[in-house]
């Protein structure tokens, strides 16, 4: 905890230390404000609608197992895209709107550290992302549950009145279905997507500390994201060049967060691997937020 000791003319020393409470107040206020943004509501509704509709699209000329794969791939793809968009759009206007509307003056005129303010805004953005992810994941879970129930019903009816062997096979298929449809490992995919979105939000925050243009604040993080997705491929092609790697080191490798496909294919993704990916994402996030603080602390309001 950082403290400032002041020697006043009296013998008393006043201090204003770093306060997680103040950060929390600003974060909750940021979340409340962001939820009222039409862009956010629009994006979230789009995401929820696409996830819900996946169950209908999947029925178009596909078998049961193909439908399940289609639903999972599509829903996780939607979650990934929408969470990235919310991370950029939700964070891009956080600081510029405070400066433009001059609400920042009344806040920073109070005994509030600039770092508390920045962190509060960022955590507010994270709360927004978490709320969105939870909403989309719940919709996704509901879709899978409905699909699973439908498939079990169809399997049971197909093998009704058939031979004992067929019924035994049906029971085995149903048991296998229960583990593959609502697969708990899908949580791993959602977790890595959330960390990816948090990292994108931190990059957006960094850009917004020195730029006042909303278009710039949206375009640059988006381009960094694309560059990050291409990094893995580039590293494999030109990784031998140290100079190349030194230059691209500033861009996170977003491809590392793409776990969804592997989980949907039934590959075992160990928690240790997920842990490394999460640590990577959060380490990058912390450094970027600190860099944002370096810039914002000296910024003239």
């Amino acid at each position: 905890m950082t403290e400032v000791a002041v020697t006043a003319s009296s013998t008393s020393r006043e201090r204003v230390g770093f306060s997680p409470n103040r950060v929390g107040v600003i974060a909750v206020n940021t979340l409340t404000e962001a939820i009222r943004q039409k862009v956010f509501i629009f994006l979230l509704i789009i995401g929820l609608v696409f996830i819900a509709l996946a169950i209908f699209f999947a029925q178009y000329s596909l078998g049961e197992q193909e439908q399940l794969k289609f639903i999972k791939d599509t829903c996780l793809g939607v979650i990934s895209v929408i969470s990235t968009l919310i991370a950029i759009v939700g964070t891009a206007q956080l600081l510029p709107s405070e400066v433009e509307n001059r609400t920042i003056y009344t806040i920073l005129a109070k005994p509030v550290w600039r770092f508390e303010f920045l962190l509060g805004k960022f955590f507010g953005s994270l709360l927004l992302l978490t709320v969105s992810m939870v909403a989309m994941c719940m919709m996704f879970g509901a879709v899978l549950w409905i699909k699973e129930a439908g498939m079990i019903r169809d399997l049971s009816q197909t093998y009704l009145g058939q031979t004992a062997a067929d019924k035994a096979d049906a029971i085995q298929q149903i048991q296998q279905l229960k583990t593959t449809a609502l697969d708990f490992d899908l949580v791993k995919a959602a977790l890595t997507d959330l960390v990816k979105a948090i990292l994108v939000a931190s990059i957006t925050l960094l850009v917004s500390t020195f730029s006042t243009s909303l278009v710039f604040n949206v375009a640059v993080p988006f381009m960094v994201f694309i560059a990050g997705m291409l990094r893995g491929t580039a590293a494999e092609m030109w990784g031998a060049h140290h100079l190349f790697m030194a230059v691209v080191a500033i861009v996170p490798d977003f491809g590392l967060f793409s776990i969804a496909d592997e989980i949907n294919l039934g590959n075992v993704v160990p928690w240790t691997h997920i842990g490394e990916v999460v640590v990577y994402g959060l380490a990058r996030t912390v450094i970027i937020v600190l860099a944002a603080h370096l810039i914002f602390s000296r910024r003239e309001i």
Partner: protein
Amino acid sequence: MRTKVLAAIVLFGIGFALLPLENSVRAQRQQMKYGGAHVTFQLREAIGQNLAIALLAGMRGVVADFIWLNSHGFWEKKEWLRQYRDILVVVTLQPQSILFWDLGQWHIAWNIGYGALSDPQNRTKAEGIKREHEWHQKAREFLERGVENVPGKYNLYFALGWLYYEKLSKDCDEPPCQEALCKATEYFRTAASFPDAPQFVPRVYARALEKCGDIRGSYEEWKRLWYLDRSKTDQTWSIIEREIRQIENELQIPNAERVFPISKP
């Protein structure tokens, strides 16, 4: 300006410091064979610009699913070569997808093969049969690539065995081709060795052994199934009992050695 430069130095420095962690994660993925083919120019030509962009955005599964949907369209329109191309693209994108390999080979061998057989452009019936056999071979090569990519699951071994059993065993001058039937048993045995293989797999293996001419082997397999843990399920025992009785009669197994001795009147 100074603070911006300092911030950039911090980002570069820490980014560089995190490279070993990045490389570790990437190495783990290579070891686990995650991902599929890179977005090469040929792949981009095959899947189109929009899907290539989606691929770059990390939505490999969604891209593969849409191409698969597309291939269904070609199937319905009987555009076999386009369907075959899409199947190849899909397994290139997701080489660890059992679904695409399994259904892909089914389309190649059963649908595209039949399409080639019944193609009105065939000048003779023999030409149709020859083309069908070529597609069976393509399906075999396809599945052999499949088991190389997904060696840890029973599904593709069973599919390969079934391909040999149902299709390749008929692709010879005097079917059934013993060689193909016996090749099928090898794959069925491998499939049955997986602990998560369904109950019908060892039963198919047992039957295939009989078709291959190894009746003794078939009998031993049926007996092994009969003596399995019955607490799991008791609904298939009537089939196994029937098969054992039939083989014991065929082989004239002495009564004392039978699983189901014949009771004296």
